[in-house]
């Protein structure tokens, strides 16, 4: 047995998260034996898919040191655009494309304010969130927009092999694809570099603005896709849908090991983060915990995630400083000897 590999594994965030998820699931199973029944597991997979899809785009932004607080509103708007297009007589695949294009435009607008006007992503997307929320009410008159096309509904409710909900499969495929982009492509490495040190990345010849624009556009599209899936599930697009989408996505990403400061993280952690949150939420309902305590628990998990991120980042910085000091001492020693 490779002791150092095992030590590294036990020290890794992923394993710790998996252990916590397993422990929480076991606890809920002890309290309610139906918790790990097939129907409930399918339900959890379904519940993961909407936030998980938004989390994919958000994770890339966070790794690059950016954030989009308007993701929930973009998801809502994407669903509404799709429903309006369906009502106007467009076949639903084209309506889906229209929604994705709309999401891309939303992302482009965010990127403009971040890159050209140089407003911090946190602040500008917070303002844009208000604009989109208002526009949603204007466009829909605060009424849900129906999307009564049975074939379209399958996007939100079909299953693969009779077990895996289609939205869950879409989420997993996206996570695997974007995970490969992050770890196997130059573009992915550039995202990490920008998140780690934007100035250094620029000096290395990377164009941060171009990459950040691509990430915001991508995030807008994924949020719109999540909104369309939700619309298919609900058979209409509600102006109140996805209001906590961005916060849920950030919580899942940070819980999964993605640093809010950027430069660190991966899709595997995102998956486990969203799984933990969904298992936690489903479990609290399954055991019948009073609602006010559920809200406390959900808030606590966000605080836990952000605290863990803070301490991880601090430890990582200390480790890097230690390694740098060690490297410089070795260099100085070698120079003396030579």
């Amino acid at each position, binding site marked *: 047995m490779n002791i150092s590999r095992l030590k590294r594994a036990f020290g890794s965030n992923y394993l710790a998260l998996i252990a916590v998820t397993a422990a929480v699931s076991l606890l809920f199973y002890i309290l*309610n034996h*139906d*918790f790990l*029944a097939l*129907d*409930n597991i*399918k*339900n959890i997979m*379904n*519940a993961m898919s*909407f936030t998980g899809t938004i989390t994919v785009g958000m994770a890339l932004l966070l790794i690059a040191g950016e954030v989009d607080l308007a993701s929930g509103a973009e998801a809502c708007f994407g669903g509404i655009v799709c429903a309006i297009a369906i009502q106007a007589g467009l076949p639903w695949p084209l309506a889906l494309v229209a929604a994705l294009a709309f999401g891309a435009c939303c992302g482009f607008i965010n990127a403009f304010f971040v890159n050209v006007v140089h407003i911090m992503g946190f602040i500008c997307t917070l303002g844009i969130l208000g604009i989109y929320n208002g526009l949603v*009410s204007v466009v829909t*008159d*605060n*009424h*849900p927009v*129906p999307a*009564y096309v049975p074939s379209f509904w399958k996007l*939100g*409710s079909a299953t693969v092999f009779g077990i895996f909900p289609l939205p869950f499969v879409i989420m997993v495929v996206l996570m695997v694809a974007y995970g490969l982009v992050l770890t196997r492509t130059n573009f992915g490495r550039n995202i990490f570099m920008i998140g780690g040190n934007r100035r250094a990345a620029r000096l290395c010849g990377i164009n941060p603005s171009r990459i950040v624009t691509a990430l915001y556009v991508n995030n807008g599209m994924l949020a719109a896709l999540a909104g369309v899936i*939700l619309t298919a*599930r*609900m*058979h*209409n697009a*509600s102006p*109140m*849908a*996805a*209001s*906590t989408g961005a916060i849920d996505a950030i919580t899942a990403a940070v819980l999964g090991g993605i640093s809010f400061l950027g430069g660190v993280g991966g899709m595997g952690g995102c998956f486990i983060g969203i799984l933990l949150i969904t298992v936690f*939420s*489903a479990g*609290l*309902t*399954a055991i*019948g915990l009073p*609602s*006010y305590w*559920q*809200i406390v628990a*959900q808030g606590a998990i966000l605080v836990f995630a952000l605290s863990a991120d803070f301490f991880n980042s601090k430890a990582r910085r200390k480790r890097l400083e230690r390694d740098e000091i060690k490297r410089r001492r070795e260099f100085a020693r070698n120079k003396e000897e030579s």
Partner: protein
Amino acid sequence: MKKIAVIALALIVAMTLALGACSKDNEKEPEKEMVVDTEKSDTVGYVTDDVDHFARDPYNFVYAYYDESALVDATFAAFEVTGKAYNFSITRMSGNESPETYMQNLQTLIDRGDVDGFFLDTDPQFQDRLMEALDKSGIPYMNMYTAFFDANGSCIRPTVGMKQYDAGYATGQWLVDNYKAYWGEDVDTSTIGLLNIDFSVSPDLQARTNGITDAFLKEFPDNEDNVFVVDGLTGGTVSAEVGYDLSSQTVTANSKIKKWLVSSCLENYAQGAARAAEALGRDADFLISDVGSIILQDEWNNGYDGAWKSCLAISDYAYCVPGAVGLIAMVDGRATPETLWEAERDPKDKCTIWAAENQMVTKDTYKEYFAKIDSTYGVG
């Protein structure tokens, strides 16, 4: 240092002027005297009022609501139509979900001096400030949907609303009266559960939830363990998505329940429950009802025929017309808040809550209900 002193002085002067301006509010016009026509007091403020509303200038009313919603939009649209029939114009004022914004906007309208009456649709948590401002102004107002109560639970301002507990009870009662029609006579009642979707921060909605639960337990007194009250507050918003999540989580985590009676204080949650039933492939095991009919009407109009079988329908005109006629009576001086609708008053109340006409409807009966309301109130 000099700069700071100048700024401080300017702030002090500004504060002094502001305080002085506030004190001028005390020198207001005396409150309008209300004149009550006692001979017609049994019809004053009713649709059958023998009043020619077009013998006067149009009144200018404001619909002041706390936050945007589909219900607010529907109510405003109904007021616009009602205004044409009863000779008043209506504008809207939003509180943007903030008591401070609500009070500021309201005071601005009061100070403008051209508003004859208010329809208030707001959070009763700041009712004292609201009543103080409006009573001082002398402008009559009518509460819509949410009543103001004193510490003894007595309604203290005329309100058009609904007896929330009764509405919930009626919804639950429909379920227990009709489940056999959908599930057969020999369904095992010990496996019937109630999924009741609540929104606990609203006392009105909580009252509906209590009514639903009581109706269920009256029919199934041994099924107390089969009652699941879930709170939409945990989802953060009033949306079908939250209803879907809560319904699916509760149903899949309780396999001992084979048949679900599902009810909700809000139609959005019921819609989510209907979608959950479809997604779980258990339409045949669900029977869903709710309080509120806007969404289900839309679904029926688009051919829906799933587990969501009924709702408590309340036409917007059933609220707006009595509210308008009652407010006009107060503005005219023919009634006061205390004398309006005395015949309808609950003995414990100081002012009347007018219970809007409502009815449990199904896909076969909803059109008839709305046609009846339109003809009763002469609008729509």
